[in-house]
């Protein structure tokens, strides 16, 4: 599903994002991306979304080489990926419901389907009551859950989540993890960057560890360490 081949990403100012990364995540896998702050996890995820271009190497997602993808194909590529952003990236002028609905609207789904799916998924993340609030009127954890809901609602074949439980208390985190797990069971590939040691240790899934932009460990049924 996701293939990084010799991928190197250096930012301006000489900051190292990723350095010579080779990794292959199979369809249907559940993988954790761990590492210290600034080790390149978000860079990894942004490369999958084609939000960034690598300096070297190629990223292949769902069999398509992103570096050869035409600009006009990028939106369709992104629709197949549900993404939970570390900084939520909610549209500030839209209510919670409209934010979630937006990623259905871009795929031209009928209004009926939207009216059905959106409250359903918001209920699932525990925000049934806050549907008509603006993002600014939510706590950080609530905003994070809206971002999670938006990533799910499309039933994408690939779900990438950048620290989706960073602002959540342990109980709520477990709820979100169970959701991710259930989604993974239906065949969706899940890649999740996280700092939640407890969670990683409990799940015993594949763990890819980054350090200074390099992969220093890649184990099945691994621990956070």
């Amino acid at each position, binding site marked *: 599903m996701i293939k990084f081949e010799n991928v190197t990403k250096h930012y301006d100012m000489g900051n190292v994002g990723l350095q010579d990364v080779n990794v292959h995540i199979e369809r249907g896998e559940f993988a954790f991306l761990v590492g210290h702050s600034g080790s390149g996890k978000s860079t990894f995820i942004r490369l999958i979304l084609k939000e960034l271009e690598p300096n070297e190497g190629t990223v292949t997602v769902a069999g398509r080489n992103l570096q050869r993808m035409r600009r006009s194909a990028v*939106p369709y590529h992104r629709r197949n990926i549900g993404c939970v952003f570390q900084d939520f990236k909610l549209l500030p002028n839209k209510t919670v419901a409209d934010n979630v609905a937006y990623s259905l609207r871009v795929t031209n789904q009928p209004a009926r389907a939207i009216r059905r799916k959106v409250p359903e998924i918001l209920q699932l993340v525990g925000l049934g009551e806050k549907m008509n609030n603006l993002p600014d009127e939510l706590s950080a954890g609530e905003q994070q859950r809206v971002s999670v809901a938006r990533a799910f609602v499309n039933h994408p074949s690939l779900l990438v989540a950048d620290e989706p439980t960073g602002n959540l208390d342990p109980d709520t985190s477990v709820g979100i993890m169970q959701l991710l797990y259930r989604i993974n069971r239906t065949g969706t590939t899940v890649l999740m960057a996280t700092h939640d040691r407890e969670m990683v240790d409990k799940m015993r899934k594949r763990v890819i560890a980054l350090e200074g932009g390099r992969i220093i460990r890649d184990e099945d049924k691994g621990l956070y360490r």
Partner: protein
Amino acid sequence: MQFKFFFSEAVNSLFKNWVMSVAAIVTVLVSMFLLGIVMILYFNVEDVIKDLRDKLEIEVFIKNTATQDEINQLGEEIQAMPEVKTVYFVSKEEALDRMRESLGENTDILDAMSGNPLPASYEIALKDPEDIRMVAERFFDNPIVDNTPGSDPPDGVKYGAETSERVLRFTTMLLIGLTSFVALLTVASVLLISNTIRLSIFARRREIEIMRLVGATNWFIRWPYVLEGIFTGVMGATVAAVLIILSNNMFSNYIRENIVWLAVQDIPILWMTVIVIGGGAIVGALGSGMALRRFLKV
């Protein structure tokens, strides 16, 4: 095409970002109003200028020695010239009457004159006043025309050489000046409006980035903004049009009452309105579209 969605997005955005909407609408309003006022001025001045230019005419004085046949023939020749709009024959008697009238009560001079020394003449109006010199020159060598030799231009053919040159030059310059000002103002308006719209979209660049990241195509993102630009333009321009019409009415009433002799051109209000509002819409749409290019990287 989800027109309904795009439409409601645009309307919502107008309200949610009302600070920026008001700013943009005010900019459209102000620039369009200025443009409209200057255009009204332009119409009026153009009209006055046309009037003035139309009044430029050639007077061909005929020697007292010319026969009636010769006079008639000259008249036909003039009539046949393609540049000529109208010809009017002033007989010796009419010339005297006119002089008497222009002298008013001071008719002592006329009383002192023996007989009628005034010549008959043809008054020629041209289609294009710019041709005046060219046409006038044709009469300089005519034997029946009363040219006083040696004087340049010959006095017999009066076409207000100096005056008409002045009027032509001055009016041409005025027209060029006003036209440039209207053009300048149009460019300025477009610049100012698209500037404001660009700013208001720039302020929302993160929003656009997010839309791109969740898989919206460029046109899906663009439509609401373009519609919003159109609404902004139309709203500003409509208010401007109303204000322009009101000021035009006030202005022309004032002139009609105070300066009776100055012709007030009736502006083609309907057309003006259509143009102003249409222009607002187009500038709004283009402004948004252009401002977005930067963030859509097309």
